[in-house]
């Protein structure tokens, strides 16, 4: 294992006692930055859940054009203005929370579902399985993640689904590594030894005991990754390798607004702002979680 990997996997080893978790939760509740971030994310989640009701015009949000009202600046009728096809930008941004948050959750979930079981198994069992997994993760980790996603998305054909799939493929090795190092460090922990002595089967040990300890670092990583994924999906769509029109993808909207950024500045600014704020929320929350749950970080 390389020095670089050590850095990413440093984590407390003792089993998480319920008391410690309660204390952590209380600290989190009192941290103003964490509250701020959680509020922002909750707002966006709510918006995504009720998007068609919140958007002034859900149809325009979904992509229906309104040619008569093209390129209007922000006004009382259209708080964020309208775009090149006359669609109300508030509706577009609001409806855009769905692909944005949906894809972030999908990528992280997929990456966790693929990477964590593999990593846990490899780290706990060791031996040949561990070797094989290390080779595989090395292969994927030898690419800058976004480059791999770009190549896959381009070859499969640009679409949000392919972009999500491509990003999940690029992301799972990080979780595999994370899970692997947790499992490795717990292999000979006293409580695991005890479980073995009592005859608990290996899969159960992994699923019940080892996984519970891996949850914390995975949660922290997932939260921060969600922000990175939103940036990545937006970036892919900006290039033309992600969502295709008329999907209300924020990155796509920024790309649409690029030619008129000096005159119709609102078309590129507000969707980009949305990406920024959501990524900010995830990053801040991830930071707060790390501070609270990982006592070794310099918080």
């Amino acid at each position, binding site marked *: 294992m390389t020095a670089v990997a050590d850095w990413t996997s440093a984590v407390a080893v003792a089993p998480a006692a319920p008391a410690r978790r309660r204390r952590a939760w209380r600290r989190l509740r009192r941290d103003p930055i964490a509250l701020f971030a959680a509020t922002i994310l909750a707002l966006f989640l709510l918006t995504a859940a009720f998007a068609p009701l919140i958007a002034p015009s859900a149809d325009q949000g979904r*992509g229906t054009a309104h040619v008569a009202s093209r390129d209007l600046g922000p006004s009382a009728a259209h708080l964020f203005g309208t775009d090149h096809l006359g669609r109300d930008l508030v509706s577009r941004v609001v409806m855009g929370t769905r692909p944005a948050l949906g894809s972030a959750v999908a990528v992280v979930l997929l990456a966790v579902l693929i990477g964590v079981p593999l990593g846990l198994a490899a780290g706990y069992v060791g031996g040949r399985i561990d070797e094989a997994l290390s080779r595989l993760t090395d292969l994927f980790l030898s690419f800058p993640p976004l480059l791999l996603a770009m190549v896959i998305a381009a070859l499969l054909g640009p679409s949000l689904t392919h972009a999500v799939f491509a990003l999940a493929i690029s992301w799972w090795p990080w979780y595999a590594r994370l899970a692997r190092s947790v499992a490795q460090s717990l292999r000979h922990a006293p409580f695991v030894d005890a479980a073995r002595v009592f005859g608990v089967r290996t899969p159960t040990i992994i699923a019940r005991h080892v996984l519970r300890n891996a949850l914390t670092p995975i949660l922290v990583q997932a939260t921060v990754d969600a922000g990175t994924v939103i940036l990545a999906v937006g970036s892919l769509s900006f290039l033309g390798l992600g969502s295709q*029109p008329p999907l209300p993808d924020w990155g796509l909207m920024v790309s649409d607004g690029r030619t008129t950024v000096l*005159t119709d500045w609102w078309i590129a600014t507000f969707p980009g702002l949305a990406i920024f704020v959501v990524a900010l929320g995830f990053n801040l929350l991830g930071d707060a979680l790390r501070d609270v749950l990982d006592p070794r970080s310099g918080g």
Partner: protein
Amino acid sequence: MRGRMHVIALLTVTATTALAAAAWAQPARKGDSQQLLRVAATAAVTTWDPIKSFSTEVLYMANIYEPLLYANPNGTFRPGLATSWSHSADGKTWTFHLRKGVTFHDGEPLTSAAVKSSIEAAAKSGGASFIWAALGSISTPDDSTVVVRTKSPARVDLIASSEDGAWIICPQALAAVAKDANYFESGKDCGTGPYTIKSYKAGSQVVLSAYDKYWGGWSGNRYQNVVVEITPEAIVQQQRLTSGQIDLALSVPLENVKRLTSGGKYSVVVQPTSQNYTAFFNTTRPPLDNVLVRRALSYAIPYASIIKVGAYGYGSQSRGPVPRGIFPWSASTPQYRENLALARRLLARAGHPGGHFSLKLTYAAENQAEARFAPLIKDAFAKIGVRVSLRGILFNQQWAAAKANPKKAQDIFLLLYWPTYSDAGSDNLYSLFHSSAKPFFNLSYWKNPAYDRLVDAGSAAFGVSQAKAQAAYAKALKILYDQAPGAFLYDAKLVLLQPKALSMAGAANINYPFVTFFYAIQKKA
């Protein structure tokens, strides 16, 4: 130790600051652009080989090489390397008399032998070799006469004026490329045209400099040097133009044209082009195998909105797949008008009252216009109960998928097309809708024997009688209107931002898509 480190640090900081300040203080150098025309174009160079050339590099080729004659926008011809030409009554023998005193860029004189080998090379292995399909033999009775004999009557004047596959190249270069296929690729040329390649940075910049022995001479305020910055993004071209980096931007974003011209520094020149947009209906599958459904959809298309949004108004609704201004376009060719009520009635008659079916529409993701107006088609069809799912795919993939299996392919295919040389009868009408064993450009997969017969008849007649060909094609166009295997959206217009300081008469020509003739650009006195 501490002192030394501090001294080093101090020195580094001072030196860097001094350098930065000195560099910043330098005013931007104003170049001597008297003789230099600075252009931004999207045209990448896929090959410098004039025989193989069949893509965007035609912009440069048309300034380096010349054909025997040029097609004027009004249907007549202008002498190029041939000063006069004639043909036999049966249209199978064409005689060209070459211009005297013309030399290639390598100094060798233009001879009929050079013309013969150029045309034969193009016919054999050219990128657009198909235009010479009717070629029989070429003879050279003397140094300045070329006689072209064809297997069937053909309009060799039109073919020889093509921007692809009709360049005249010096024999030395032809011999060299026969030995080494990559001979031209580093940036070599050997034509008769006004410019020659001075330097080439792949994907970035082409510099052309004047050929001083050009037969047309260099009188007037023509530019002796042209630097073309290859800039695929229209917005970047605009940024370069407004910051004074370039004199001429060949593609600015259409949505900004009005603002750019309002300042008074530029005027806009709008010209027809031979490019048009067609939406092919997949006629192999229900429901689009029903002609009533296709007609209904043709009535549902919002033609005016598509032009307003897709082309920002710079377009005119198509009459069939023949672009306006290219033979055999005619104002009497019928066209559909948006009429949703009629569309609904036709759908009901077809057995689909209220619509209630879904269609998959594919378009080229990198084509900005299609990306803009495809949603309008989706919205319009939704009004008559037809659900459309849009798929933007990179053109190469869109096309590969469409050719692979018609039964499993898209329902509607949006295509931007233009004829290789200005005969949309043997090109558009044939390529786009003539039946074929394996689909190529006929992406409606339509097979109509009556139509095929008419188009074949038109092609055959064209070599002898333009009027007869026009009549046959008119009937074929009527069938296309009745059967609606595709919807004919709009003919694109060329929008050129002309700087006040330049005169650009003759720089653009509908028969030469993607070409700007730099020789025709002059600085206004």
